[in-house]
């Protein structure tokens, strides 16, 4: 189906001019917070827009959200917490570029700069680990204080508060982003070779190779409950089945939203099987997983590749941000 023929919600989008590339965005209550390539953070709450200079001399490279804060890392070496009221707190500064960030439900923050990974717990106690190569991705386990670190030739699983050395999940090649399944059974990385690699942690450390992408699958999203993993990196969202104990092995993935444009961002709805898909040509679609019904949220827009996509906690609103600083939100009637 061509996009032109799709039922469209495009006229219901509330546009936002972020002014710089949107490196990441998230909802904190009613506020949309955007981490920008020019080092600023934009807080949009209703008609009120506030700009916070979180990284005055830098660009934001990575960001992560939880329900109360946005944490950003920049090429100025800063790690900054910004709250919806515009207040900021600097957690680290002065070092190398911050290449990855992960947040823990307890309030702990992990970040990496160069080869050094720092885990800062909710009491402010810092532990560090030197990875074998510069990590590009970090992810906390859903339970317990344990961090997955993606690097060259595998991923390390590290308990910051234990003296035991990290547990190495090995697989040859350069691993970029990392994600942990919501049930904690699987760790999946994106790879330099346009593929995903997964490990089944129990019972046997089985390998899962998910390949066939035309680009690096740099965006991944778990469906609520973790039965599906949606991924970018092809001319459709590639969605792998993870409900069985073997994960996707021996099973074909589903392809959603096939278009002549590369999928660059995916975001599963928090409570139903609906997938938001952002494309390199600026298009945004909503796809109902069960019957593949599609809704258009944003038409293709030249020079405006989608760079960020996020649902609010209840799943009633979606926000997107783009490479040229354009952004928008949409409220869905249930």
């Amino acid at each position, binding site marked *: 189906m061509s996009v032109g023929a799709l039922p469209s919600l495009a006229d219901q989008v509330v546009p936002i001019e972020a002014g710089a*590339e949107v490196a990441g965005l998230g909802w904190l209550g009613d506020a949309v917070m955007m981490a920008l*390539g020019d080092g600023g953070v934009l807080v949009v709450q209703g008609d009120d827009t506030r700009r916070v200079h979180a990284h005055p001399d830098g660009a934001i490279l990575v960001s992560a959200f939880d329900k109360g804060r946005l944490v950003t890392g920049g*090429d100025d070496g800063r790690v900054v917490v910004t709250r919806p009221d515009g207040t900021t707190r600097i957690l680290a500064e002065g070092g190398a570029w911050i290449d990855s960030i992960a947040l823990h439900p307890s309030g702990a923050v992990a970040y990496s700069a160069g080869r050094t990974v720092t885990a800062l717990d909710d009491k402010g106690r810092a532990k560090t680990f030197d990875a074998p*190569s510069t990590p590009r991705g970090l992810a906390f386990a859903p339970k317990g204080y344990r961090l997955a670190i993606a690097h060259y030739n595998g991923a390390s699983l590290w308990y910051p508060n234990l003296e035991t050395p990290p547990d190495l999940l090995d697989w*040859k090649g350069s691993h970029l982003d990392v994600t942990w399944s919501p049930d904690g059974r699987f760790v999946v990385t994106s790879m*330099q070779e346009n593929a995903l690699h997964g490990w089944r942690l129990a019972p046997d450390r089985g390998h899962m190779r998910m390949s066939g992408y035309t680009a690096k699958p740099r965006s991944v999203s778990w469906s609520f409950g973790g039965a599906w993993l949606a991924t970018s990196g092809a001319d459709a969202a590639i969605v792998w089945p993870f409900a069985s104990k073997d994960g996707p092995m021996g099973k074909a993935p589903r392809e959603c939203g096939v278009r002549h444009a590369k999928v660059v961002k995916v975001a599963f709805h928090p409570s139903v099987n609906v997938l938001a898909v952002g494309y390199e040509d600026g298009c945004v679609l909503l796809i109902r997983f069960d019957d593949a019904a599609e809704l258009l949220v944003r038409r293709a827009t030249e*020079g405006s590749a989608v760079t960020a996509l996020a649902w609010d906690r209840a799943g009633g609103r979606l926000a997107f941000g783009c490479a040229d600083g354009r952004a928008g939100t949409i409220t869905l009637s249930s």
Partner: protein
Amino acid sequence: MTMTDKIPVTVLTGYLGAGKTTLLNRILTEEHGKKYAVIVNEFGEIGIDNDLIVGADEEVFEMNNGCICCTVRGDLIRIIEGLMKRRGKFDAILVETTGLADPAPVAQTFFVDQDVAERARLDAVVTVADAKWLVQRLGDAPEAKNQIAFADVILLNKTDLVSPAELDAVEARIRLINPTARVHRTVNCAIPIPEVLDRNAFDLDRIMEVEPDFLEEGHHHHHDEEMTSFSFRSGEVNPDKFMPWISELTQRDGAQILRCKGIVAFPDEPKRFVFQGVHMLLDGDLSRDWRADEKRESRVVFIGRELNADAIRDGFMACAA
């Protein structure tokens, strides 16, 4: 600058003490109105006012693509991605490698990584060589030989420390290893910046624009112990023979071929076919039309280690149309 413009990347190599940092400082302090993002391994005595400086560890990664010599610089992929957040705030990227670095992984990064290739283009590999010590280094340091073999531009530096005869000898030695690079004799790396930057050395449309002298003679073969360079010329070649030949040759002997390039004439094809390669990676396309005053002939150059020149020549000649 539009978003679709690719950022040019210049790679500065050179053995320890040859004068890389001097050249870098010269580029950065010259009045040219341009801003650079500079990727360095050690924060040394670098003059930066308006420029962006990024520290890097040279992280050389093997690709799992069945090609043993296919290595990329993982740190470069990461840094170029990050620098693109500041797109529009700098005009070009300079990469200073360590004295012991092999330029191949840097060059291969631009062939292999799609994200890098979409945003940036390799402009040239510039090698600074020490006129007094190069000959000795070529004997005891394989890295030094790689850096000469790989270069598009060579600064034969510190010429004030050697006699004219010694200088001629060292340049002749460089020519044995790399017949296609531009060689400039310098003191303190004093050179007009346009000779170093914006060379478009990897632009297929400009391949072999600087025609090596020895090509005039037909078949040439230069030996420098194990490092070899040679070139062949022929008339029109049959694409159905040439394409499989060059592809199989680089697949089989790619580990030994540091660089190759050529301009090829196919029968009834109005455009020149041009190609270049780094180890096993090949890039080729039809470029501009043959001009009326140009002789339609095919010319290829190979630089590599322990290559069988006779076998390669025979293979090339067998592609004749």
